[in-house]
């Protein structure tokens, strides 16, 4: 039997090991962290390891080959190494995902904070706009916008993805702001005459950072799904190396659906996406603790 520590024993970790300690405290978080670091490396060093000019050249002699030492994930319908395609696809996918999540958080938090703290007329107007964006089915809207814009630049895709999906976060941040606004420490800040800007950014916002950080991570996966989805449907113009393009070709031109030897080619991009999702989910709990001092030291009042 384990005897619990006396209540007054400080359970605080040394400050230096704080954030690192949180990530190392559970095996799942370590796994998640390793996955994310791996993707980061793929995005940064991918073109160095697999120079596109060499790695992406079609080779009719190697179509749909099984795994070999040279091509651990086999080859695709053009004889290109699947591993190279996956690694080279990471940069574009991650960039769009992170960029869109960043914009979503900025728009969502900005709108929510402003509406919730100001109240009155501003609140009513901002929330009606938000309601419309929440009510419109997001993916069909995205399809419509993507088709009209015929977007090929990643920046335009980021803009599109974020403009169609900030509504939910804005609404949640608004209701968080509304409840925080009534708290005594916000009234104390008003009494100290800290001003609207400081009260929203330094007093209220830090209290929802863990929520915002988790939303940021979840938005990354959401944006990646939508981006890959657009490519899968063939709506946005092709960039040569992208997981969505691989899926699109798997579904169409490659003839992958008529043979079972294409299994690695079909599954690889999907697993690449799911693994990223799993990595993000595994570290979510850690983020909550990093931004919430009360969870960090495990103590309640």
């Amino acid at each position, binding site marked *: 039997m384990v005897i619990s520590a006396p209540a007054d024993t400080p359970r605080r970790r040394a400050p230096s090991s704080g954030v690192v300690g949180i990530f190392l405290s559970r095996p799942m978080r370590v796994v998640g962290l390793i996955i994310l670091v791996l993707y980061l490396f793929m995005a940064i060093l991918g073109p160095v390891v697999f120079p596109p000019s060499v790695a992406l050249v079609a080779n009719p002699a190697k179509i749909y080959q099984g795994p070999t030492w040279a091509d651990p994930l086999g080859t695709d319908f053009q004889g290109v190494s699947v591993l190279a395609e996956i690694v080279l696809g990471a940069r574009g996918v991650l960039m769009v995902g992170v960029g869109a999540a960043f914009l979503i958080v900025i728009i969502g938090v900005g709108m929510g904070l402003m509406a919730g703290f100001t109240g009155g007329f501003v609140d009513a107007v901002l929330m009606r706009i938000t309601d419309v964006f929440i009510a419109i089915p997001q993916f069909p809207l995205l399809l419509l916008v993507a088709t009209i814009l015929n977007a090929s630049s990643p920046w335009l895709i980021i803009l599109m993805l974020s403009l169609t999906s900030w509504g939910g976060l804005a609404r949640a941040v608004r209701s968080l702001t509304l409840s925080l606004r009534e708290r*005594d*420490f916000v009234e*104390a800040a008003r009494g*100290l*005459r*800290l001003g609207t800007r*400081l009260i929203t950014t330094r007093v209220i916002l830090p*209290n929802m*950072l863990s929520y915002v950080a988790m939303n940021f991570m979840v938005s990354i996966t959401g944006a990646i799904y939508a981006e890959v989805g657009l490519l899968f449907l063939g709506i946005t113009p092709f960039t040569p190396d992208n997981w969505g393009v691989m899926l699109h070709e798997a579904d169409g031109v490659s003839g992958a659906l008529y043979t079972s030897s294409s299994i690695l080619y079909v599954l690889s991009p999907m697993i690449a996406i799911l693994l990223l999702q799993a990595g993000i989910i595994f570290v979510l709990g850690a983020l909550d603790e990093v931004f919430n001092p009360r969870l960090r030291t495990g*103590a309640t009042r």
Partner: protein
Amino acid sequence: MLACNDVVKQFAIRRTWGSRQVTVVNRVSVSVEASHVLCIVGESGCGKTTLGKVLAGLLAPTLGSVTVDGTLLYHPGNKAWEREALKIQLIHQDPFSTLNPVHTVREELSLPLLHHQIVPKSLVGEECEHLLTRTGLDPKVVIDKYPHELSGGQRQRVVLARALSVRPRYIVADEAVSMVDVSSRLIMLDLFLEIAQKERIGLVFITHDFGLARYVALEGTIAVMYLGRVVEFGGTETVIHQPRHPYTKVLLSSIPPLQAGDDFKIDKVYPRSFDVPSLELLPPGCVFEPRCPYAFDRCQSALPVLSTVVHEPGHQVACYLEDEETAVV
């Protein structure tokens, strides 16, 4: 001087059909000078917390005015008064909820210091430590801690230090020691009084406890509130030893004696009923009439106004018994 003049505060209460106004503070005028103490005593729901917020510049009154050292607060359209209102600091009842859970003590104290440029940027750290030392805390122990890592007494001291950081001239303390452990309450009170005296700060002390009120405002004044109105006002000793309003007498009678014969030297008075009327459905006459053991016909018809007791300048009571007694004498 911090003063409010004929202050009325109403809140809208939503009902199925429309909303109705409830008057929480009704025509109250009180004031406190620098380095003096005013105690506001009353049961929960009497409007004392609302009055405290109005006095602290945090809640605009529906009618009436609040002035601090001659400056009118709540000037519509012109925000300049907020600068003056910094002179008044409110200390909440619950020190835990009034500290930001994600700020360390250092962040909590340096935010107002930096924003109002009270000390040069390079001296902010030093000033934080100085403020903590002044409120009886060891800066080395508490300065990098979060609120949940502090004890109740430490939290209240940090709150006091934060209030002192902006150099207030007046402090409104709303039940400021009720959440502190009983054993350290008196130490906390003494700290309040000592700092207030040293810094020549005017103190508005809001409490439901006459014992505390007497201790805090020994040389100050007491205002007794009931259902949004001040029913008795006067010097502390006068109100406690020669209470005139039946409600004050009821409150004083309810203090348990520490040992036999240690009672306040007044006759025990008990109310006729223990049910406090709802603010939404006040009696037509004197608000205390339904519970008052001395009530008579006149009390049911109209509200008595606060007026000075004969031969006792500075002592005000809102009760028809006064007129009757004067008539008898």
